[in-house]
Protein backbone atom coordinates (compact mmCIF):
# COMPACT_ATOMS: atom_id res chain seq x y z
CA UNK A 1 0.00 0.00 0.00
CA UNK A 2 1.34 3.33 -1.03
CA UNK A 3 1.60 5.46 2.09
CA UNK A 4 0.54 8.62 0.30
CA UNK A 5 -2.86 7.23 -0.60
CA UNK A 6 -4.25 7.47 2.90
CA UNK A 7 -2.81 10.87 3.65
CA UNK A 8 -4.38 12.25 0.50
CA UNK A 9 -7.81 10.81 1.17
CA UNK A 10 -7.62 12.00 4.76
CA UNK A 11 -6.73 15.50 3.61
CA UNK A 12 -9.67 15.59 1.21
CA UNK A 13 -11.97 14.21 3.87
CA UNK A 14 -10.87 16.86 6.34
CA UNK A 15 -11.47 19.69 3.96
CA UNK A 16 -14.54 18.74 2.01
CA UNK A 17 -17.84 17.08 2.55
CA UNK A 18 -16.94 13.67 1.18
CA UNK A 19 -19.80 11.30 0.42
CA UNK A 20 -17.72 8.18 0.09
CA UNK A 21 -14.12 7.09 -0.24
CA UNK A 22 -12.78 3.88 -1.65
CA UNK A 23 -9.32 2.39 -1.99
CA UNK A 24 -9.35 0.84 -5.45
CA UNK A 25 -5.87 -0.63 -5.40
CA UNK A 26 -2.59 0.09 -3.70
CA UNK A 27 -1.87 3.23 -5.71
CA UNK A 28 -5.38 4.37 -6.45
CA UNK A 29 -8.19 5.84 -4.42
CA UNK A 30 -11.62 7.16 -5.26
CA UNK A 31 -13.47 10.06 -3.67
CA UNK A 32 -17.12 10.93 -4.21
CA UNK A 33 -17.92 14.60 -3.83
CA UNK A 34 -20.88 16.88 -4.24
CA UNK A 35 -20.80 18.72 -7.55
CA UNK A 36 -20.42 22.03 -5.76
CA UNK A 37 -17.16 20.99 -4.13
CA UNK A 38 -15.45 19.78 -7.27
CA UNK A 39 -13.74 23.00 -8.25
CA UNK A 40 -12.42 23.76 -4.80
CA UNK A 41 -11.25 20.17 -4.41
CA UNK A 42 -9.49 20.18 -7.77
CA UNK A 43 -7.71 23.42 -6.96
CA UNK A 44 -6.73 22.01 -3.56
CA UNK A 45 -5.46 18.76 -5.03
CA UNK A 46 -3.54 20.51 -7.76
CA UNK A 47 -1.68 22.42 -5.08
CA UNK A 48 -1.06 19.12 -3.28
CA UNK A 49 0.89 17.75 -6.21
CA UNK A 50 -1.75 16.32 -8.50
CA UNK A 51 -0.51 18.41 -11.37
CA UNK A 52 -1.99 16.33 -14.12
CA UNK A 53 -5.56 15.72 -15.11
CA UNK A 54 -5.21 12.38 -16.87
CA UNK A 55 -8.74 12.26 -18.07
CA UNK A 56 -12.19 13.61 -17.56
CA UNK A 57 -14.93 11.21 -18.41
CA UNK A 58 -18.52 10.54 -17.70
CA UNK A 59 -20.67 7.57 -16.76
CA UNK A 60 -24.37 7.43 -17.51
CA UNK A 61 -26.25 5.84 -14.61
CA UNK A 62 -29.57 5.44 -16.33
CA UNK A 63 -31.39 3.79 -13.42
CA UNK A 64 -30.31 6.45 -10.94
CA UNK A 65 -31.10 9.14 -13.50
CA UNK A 66 -27.66 10.61 -12.94
CA UNK A 67 -24.50 11.39 -14.83
CA UNK A 68 -21.28 10.78 -13.00
CA UNK A 69 -18.32 12.93 -13.92
CA UNK A 70 -14.97 11.33 -13.19
CA UNK A 71 -11.82 13.40 -12.88
CA UNK A 72 -8.72 11.22 -12.92
CA UNK A 73 -5.76 12.93 -11.29
CA UNK A 74 -2.21 11.74 -11.14
CA UNK A 75 0.69 12.77 -8.98
CA UNK A 76 3.80 12.01 -10.97
CA UNK A 77 6.19 12.43 -8.05
CA UNK A 78 4.41 10.09 -5.66
CA UNK A 79 2.83 7.78 -8.17
CA UNK A 80 -0.63 8.20 -6.68
CA UNK A 81 -3.83 8.30 -8.66
CA UNK A 82 -7.10 9.73 -7.50
CA UNK A 83 -10.54 9.32 -8.99
CA UNK A 84 -12.70 12.27 -8.14
CA UNK A 85 -16.32 11.65 -8.90
CA UNK A 86 -19.42 13.78 -8.75
CA UNK A 87 -22.96 13.05 -9.78
CA UNK A 88 -25.17 15.35 -11.80
CA UNK A 89 -28.87 15.31 -12.51
CA UNK A 90 -29.43 13.46 -15.76
CA UNK A 91 -32.37 15.54 -16.95
CA UNK A 92 -30.56 18.82 -16.60
CA UNK A 93 -26.89 18.01 -17.07
CA UNK A 94 -25.10 21.28 -16.46
CA UNK A 95 -21.74 21.84 -14.92
CA UNK A 96 -19.08 24.49 -14.85
CA UNK A 97 -15.83 24.18 -16.66
CA UNK A 98 -12.58 23.37 -14.89
CA UNK A 99 -10.37 24.78 -17.62
CA UNK A 100 -9.26 27.57 -15.31
CA UNK A 101 -7.70 24.93 -13.04
CA UNK A 102 -6.64 22.34 -15.61
CA UNK A 103 -6.43 23.96 -19.07
CA UNK A 104 -6.00 20.52 -20.57
CA UNK A 105 -9.60 19.72 -19.69
CA UNK A 106 -10.90 21.76 -22.59
CA UNK A 107 -11.12 18.98 -25.11
CA UNK A 108 -12.17 16.39 -22.57
CA UNK A 109 -15.14 18.58 -21.75
CA UNK A 110 -15.88 18.89 -25.41
CA UNK A 111 -15.72 15.13 -25.70
CA UNK A 112 -18.10 14.62 -22.76
CA UNK A 113 -20.48 17.19 -24.16
CA UNK A 114 -20.50 15.54 -27.53
CA UNK A 115 -21.04 12.01 -26.30
CA UNK A 116 -23.24 12.61 -23.24
CA UNK A 117 -24.74 16.02 -23.70
CA UNK A 118 -23.37 17.44 -20.46
CA UNK A 119 -23.01 21.18 -20.84
CA UNK A 120 -19.99 22.94 -19.43
CA UNK A 121 -20.60 26.58 -18.79
CA UNK A 122 -17.59 28.75 -19.36
CA UNK A 123 -16.17 26.55 -22.08
CA UNK A 124 -17.68 27.95 -25.28
CA UNK A 125 -15.73 25.56 -27.48
CA UNK A 126 -17.41 22.59 -25.85
CA UNK A 127 -20.68 23.21 -27.69
CA UNK A 128 -19.18 22.42 -31.09
CA UNK A 129 -19.10 19.03 -32.69
CA UNK A 130 -15.73 17.40 -32.65
CA UNK A 131 -15.69 13.74 -33.53
CA UNK A 132 -19.07 13.38 -35.15
CA UNK A 133 -20.34 15.14 -38.19
CA UNK A 134 -23.96 15.97 -38.97
CA UNK A 135 -25.12 14.01 -35.93
CA UNK A 136 -28.88 13.71 -35.89
CA UNK A 137 -29.74 11.71 -32.77
CA UNK A 138 -29.35 11.89 -29.00
CA UNK A 139 -25.74 11.89 -27.78
CA UNK A 140 -24.49 8.41 -28.67
CA UNK A 141 -22.84 7.34 -25.43
CA UNK A 142 -26.02 7.67 -23.42
CA UNK A 143 -27.34 4.33 -22.28
CA UNK A 144 -30.72 4.80 -23.95
CA UNK A 145 -29.13 5.22 -27.35
CA UNK A 146 -29.27 1.99 -29.30
CA UNK A 147 -26.26 1.76 -31.50
CA UNK A 148 -27.42 -1.33 -33.39
CA UNK A 149 -30.77 0.18 -34.29
CA UNK A 150 -29.13 3.37 -35.50
CA UNK A 151 -26.65 1.45 -37.60
CA UNK A 152 -29.35 -0.72 -39.15
CA UNK A 153 -31.48 2.30 -39.91
CA UNK A 154 -28.73 4.32 -41.50
CA UNK A 155 -26.40 1.88 -43.17
CA UNK A 156 -27.62 -0.89 -45.44
CA UNK A 157 -26.38 -4.31 -44.44
CA UNK A 158 -25.22 -7.03 -46.74
CA UNK A 159 -27.78 -9.78 -47.16
CA UNK A 160 -26.54 -13.29 -47.39
CA UNK A 161 -28.47 -16.03 -49.12
CA UNK A 162 -27.55 -18.46 -46.40
CA UNK A 163 -27.72 -17.52 -42.74
CA UNK A 164 -24.28 -18.44 -41.47
CA UNK A 165 -24.98 -17.24 -37.96
CA UNK A 166 -27.50 -19.99 -37.26
CA UNK A 167 -25.75 -22.78 -39.09
CA UNK A 168 -23.15 -23.13 -36.36
CA UNK A 169 -25.61 -23.60 -33.51
CA UNK A 170 -26.67 -27.04 -32.43
CA UNK A 171 -24.85 -28.98 -35.10
Amino acid at each position, binding site marked *: MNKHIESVTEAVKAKFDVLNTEIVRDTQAAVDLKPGDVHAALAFLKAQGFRQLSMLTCVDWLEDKEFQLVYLLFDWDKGVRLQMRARLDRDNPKFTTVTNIYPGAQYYERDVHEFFGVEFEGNPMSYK*QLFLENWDDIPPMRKDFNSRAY*SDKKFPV*REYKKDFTKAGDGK
Partner: protein
Amino acid sequence: MGEGIIEKDKKLKEGWEGISRFFRANSLWMLMYCTGCCAIELPQAMTSRYDMERLGMGPMATPRQADVLLVTGYLSVKTLRRVIYAYEQMSTPKYLVAFGPCPINGGIYYDAYAVINRLDQYLPVDVYIAGCMPKPEAVMNGFQDLIDGIKNKTADGWKRYRDNYEWYRKNQIESLGELRIKDEFHE
Protein backbone atom coordinates in the same frame (compact mmCIF):
# COMPACT_ATOMS: atom_id res chain seq x y z
CA MET B 1 -16.32 0.23 -97.76
CA GLY B 2 -17.86 2.13 -94.88
CA GLU B 3 -18.17 -1.01 -92.86
CA GLY B 4 -14.59 -1.86 -93.53
CA ILE B 5 -13.45 1.43 -92.08
CA ILE B 6 -15.62 0.99 -89.01
CA GLU B 7 -14.26 -2.50 -88.58
CA LYS B 8 -10.73 -1.22 -88.89
CA ASP B 9 -11.48 1.60 -86.51
CA LYS B 10 -12.82 -0.83 -83.97
CA LYS B 11 -9.76 -3.00 -84.27
CA LEU B 12 -7.49 -0.04 -83.87
CA LYS B 13 -9.41 1.07 -80.83
CA GLU B 14 -9.23 -2.37 -79.32
CA GLY B 15 -5.55 -2.56 -79.99
CA TRP B 16 -5.04 0.80 -78.34
CA GLU B 17 -7.14 -0.31 -75.38
CA GLY B 18 -5.05 -3.44 -75.07
CA ILE B 19 -1.85 -1.44 -75.03
CA SER B 20 -3.31 0.96 -72.48
CA ARG B 21 -4.36 -1.91 -70.27
CA PHE B 22 -0.89 -3.36 -70.39
CA PHE B 23 0.63 -0.12 -69.18
CA ARG B 24 -2.07 0.44 -66.58
CA ALA B 25 -1.67 -3.03 -65.16
CA ASN B 26 2.04 -2.58 -64.72
CA SER B 27 2.09 0.86 -63.26
CA LEU B 28 -0.39 1.22 -60.43
CA TRP B 29 -0.04 4.29 -58.32
CA MET B 30 -1.77 4.17 -55.01
CA LEU B 31 -3.24 7.10 -53.22
CA MET B 32 -1.58 7.52 -49.83
CA TYR B 33 -4.73 7.74 -47.81
CA CYS B 34 -4.80 5.67 -44.65
CA THR B 35 -8.54 5.50 -44.13
CA GLY B 36 -8.33 2.84 -41.48
CA CYS B 37 -6.18 0.44 -39.56
CA CYS B 38 -5.26 -1.94 -42.40
CA ALA B 39 -2.91 0.76 -43.65
CA ILE B 40 -0.42 -0.36 -41.00
CA GLU B 41 0.61 -3.36 -43.09
CA LEU B 42 1.14 -1.26 -46.21
CA PRO B 43 4.58 0.00 -45.15
CA GLN B 44 5.55 -3.63 -44.65
CA ALA B 45 4.30 -4.48 -48.11
CA MET B 46 6.26 -1.54 -49.47
CA THR B 47 9.55 -2.22 -47.74
CA SER B 48 12.27 -4.76 -48.07
CA ARG B 49 10.43 -7.97 -47.44
CA TYR B 50 7.71 -7.64 -50.04
CA ASP B 51 8.68 -4.53 -51.99
CA MET B 52 5.62 -3.52 -53.93
CA GLU B 53 7.68 -1.42 -56.29
CA ARG B 54 8.68 -4.62 -58.08
CA LEU B 55 5.16 -4.69 -59.49
CA GLY B 56 5.42 -1.05 -60.46
CA MET B 57 3.30 0.14 -57.59
CA GLY B 58 4.09 3.16 -55.56
CA PRO B 59 2.49 5.73 -53.31
CA MET B 60 1.33 9.02 -54.74
CA ALA B 61 0.66 12.27 -53.02
CA THR B 62 -2.68 13.46 -54.33
CA PRO B 63 -5.85 11.88 -55.75
CA ARG B 64 -5.29 13.48 -59.14
CA GLN B 65 -2.04 11.64 -59.63
CA ALA B 66 -3.20 8.27 -58.37
CA ASP B 67 -4.82 5.27 -60.07
CA VAL B 68 -5.82 3.15 -57.11
CA LEU B 69 -7.75 4.24 -54.06
CA LEU B 70 -7.12 1.99 -51.11
CA VAL B 71 -9.90 1.83 -48.57
CA THR B 72 -7.85 0.35 -45.79
CA GLY B 73 -10.38 -0.98 -43.37
CA TYR B 74 -13.47 0.46 -41.77
CA LEU B 75 -14.95 3.67 -43.05
CA SER B 76 -16.48 6.04 -40.59
CA VAL B 77 -19.19 8.30 -41.91
CA LYS B 78 -16.86 11.23 -41.71
CA THR B 79 -14.21 9.48 -43.77
CA LEU B 80 -16.68 8.22 -46.34
CA ARG B 81 -17.52 11.80 -47.28
CA ARG B 82 -13.87 12.52 -47.91
CA VAL B 83 -13.27 9.22 -49.70
CA ILE B 84 -16.06 10.06 -52.12
CA TYR B 85 -14.40 13.41 -52.75
CA ALA B 86 -11.06 11.71 -53.34
CA TYR B 87 -12.52 9.06 -55.61
CA GLU B 88 -14.32 11.58 -57.77
CA GLN B 89 -11.15 13.64 -58.11
CA MET B 90 -9.12 10.80 -59.51
CA SER B 91 -8.78 10.72 -63.27
CA THR B 92 -10.18 7.68 -65.04
CA PRO B 93 -9.44 4.81 -65.27
CA LYS B 94 -9.36 4.41 -61.52
CA TYR B 95 -9.62 1.42 -59.27
CA LEU B 96 -10.72 0.87 -55.71
CA VAL B 97 -9.35 -1.82 -53.45
CA ALA B 98 -11.06 -2.54 -50.14
CA PHE B 99 -9.14 -4.10 -47.27
CA GLY B 100 -10.46 -6.31 -44.55
CA PRO B 101 -13.98 -7.39 -43.62
CA CYS B 102 -15.20 -3.95 -42.55
CA PRO B 103 -15.98 -2.61 -46.06
CA ILE B 104 -17.65 -5.92 -46.92
CA ASN B 105 -20.21 -6.17 -44.14
CA GLY B 106 -19.09 -4.00 -41.27
CA GLY B 107 -16.82 -6.58 -39.65
CA ILE B 108 -16.56 -6.12 -35.91
CA TYR B 109 -18.18 -2.72 -36.28
CA TYR B 110 -21.45 -4.10 -37.61
CA ASP B 111 -23.37 -2.34 -34.85
CA ALA B 112 -21.29 0.80 -34.50
CA TYR B 113 -23.14 4.04 -35.03
CA ALA B 114 -20.28 5.74 -36.84
CA VAL B 115 -19.12 3.05 -39.25
CA ILE B 116 -20.78 2.10 -42.51
CA ASN B 117 -21.49 -1.53 -43.26
CA ARG B 118 -21.18 -1.95 -47.01
CA LEU B 119 -18.83 0.03 -49.14
CA ASP B 120 -20.19 -1.20 -52.48
CA GLN B 121 -23.38 0.70 -51.82
CA TYR B 122 -21.53 3.98 -52.10
CA LEU B 123 -18.54 3.35 -54.34
CA PRO B 124 -17.73 0.55 -56.78
CA VAL B 125 -15.16 -1.88 -55.43
CA ASP B 126 -12.82 -3.71 -57.77
CA VAL B 127 -11.02 -6.03 -55.37
CA TYR B 128 -11.65 -7.09 -51.78
CA ILE B 129 -8.78 -8.31 -49.67
CA ALA B 130 -9.79 -10.48 -46.73
CA GLY B 131 -8.27 -10.68 -43.29
CA CYS B 132 -8.17 -8.56 -40.18
CA MET B 133 -5.73 -7.33 -40.85
CA PRO B 134 -4.63 -8.68 -44.23
CA LYS B 135 -1.06 -9.86 -44.10
CA PRO B 136 1.34 -8.41 -46.65
CA GLU B 137 1.09 -11.66 -48.61
CA ALA B 138 -2.65 -11.18 -48.85
CA VAL B 139 -2.17 -7.57 -49.83
CA MET B 140 0.22 -8.51 -52.60
CA ASN B 141 -2.12 -11.25 -53.71
CA GLY B 142 -4.96 -8.77 -53.84
CA PHE B 143 -2.95 -6.41 -55.98
CA GLN B 144 -2.08 -9.27 -58.27
CA ASP B 145 -5.81 -9.91 -58.59
CA LEU B 146 -6.31 -6.28 -59.48
CA ILE B 147 -3.59 -6.50 -62.11
CA ASP B 148 -5.23 -9.58 -63.58
CA GLY B 149 -8.57 -7.83 -63.46
CA ILE B 150 -7.21 -4.89 -65.39
CA LYS B 151 -5.71 -7.19 -67.97
CA ASN B 152 -8.91 -9.14 -68.57
CA LYS B 153 -11.22 -6.13 -68.26
CA THR B 154 -13.07 -7.20 -65.10
CA ALA B 155 -11.83 -4.28 -63.03
CA ASP B 156 -14.28 -1.77 -64.44
CA GLY B 157 -15.55 -0.09 -61.30
CA TRP B 158 -15.08 3.38 -62.74
CA LYS B 159 -17.36 2.50 -65.64
CA ARG B 160 -19.97 1.15 -63.26
CA TYR B 161 -19.75 4.32 -61.21
CA ARG B 162 -20.21 6.43 -64.30
CA ASP B 163 -23.15 4.40 -65.58
CA ASN B 164 -24.96 4.01 -62.24
CA TYR B 165 -24.06 7.38 -60.85
CA GLU B 166 -27.64 8.20 -59.81
CA TRP B 167 -27.96 5.02 -57.80
CA TYR B 168 -24.67 5.52 -56.00
CA ARG B 169 -25.48 9.14 -55.30
CA LYS B 170 -28.87 8.18 -53.86
CA ASN B 171 -27.28 5.68 -51.48
CA GLN B 172 -24.64 8.14 -50.44
CA ILE B 173 -27.20 10.78 -49.57
CA GLU B 174 -29.41 8.30 -47.76
CA SER B 175 -26.64 7.29 -45.37
CA LEU B 176 -24.71 10.50 -45.08
CA GLY B 177 -27.57 12.96 -45.11
CA GLU B 178 -25.50 15.50 -46.90
CA LEU B 179 -22.40 15.06 -48.98
CA ARG B 180 -21.01 18.52 -48.47
CA ILE B 181 -18.37 18.63 -45.78
CA LYS B 182 -19.27 20.93 -42.96
CA ASP B 183 -16.75 21.47 -40.22
CA GLU B 184 -15.20 24.33 -38.34
CA PHE B 185 -13.15 25.15 -41.34
CA HIS B 186 -15.93 25.45 -43.84
CA GLU B 187 -18.07 27.85 -41.86
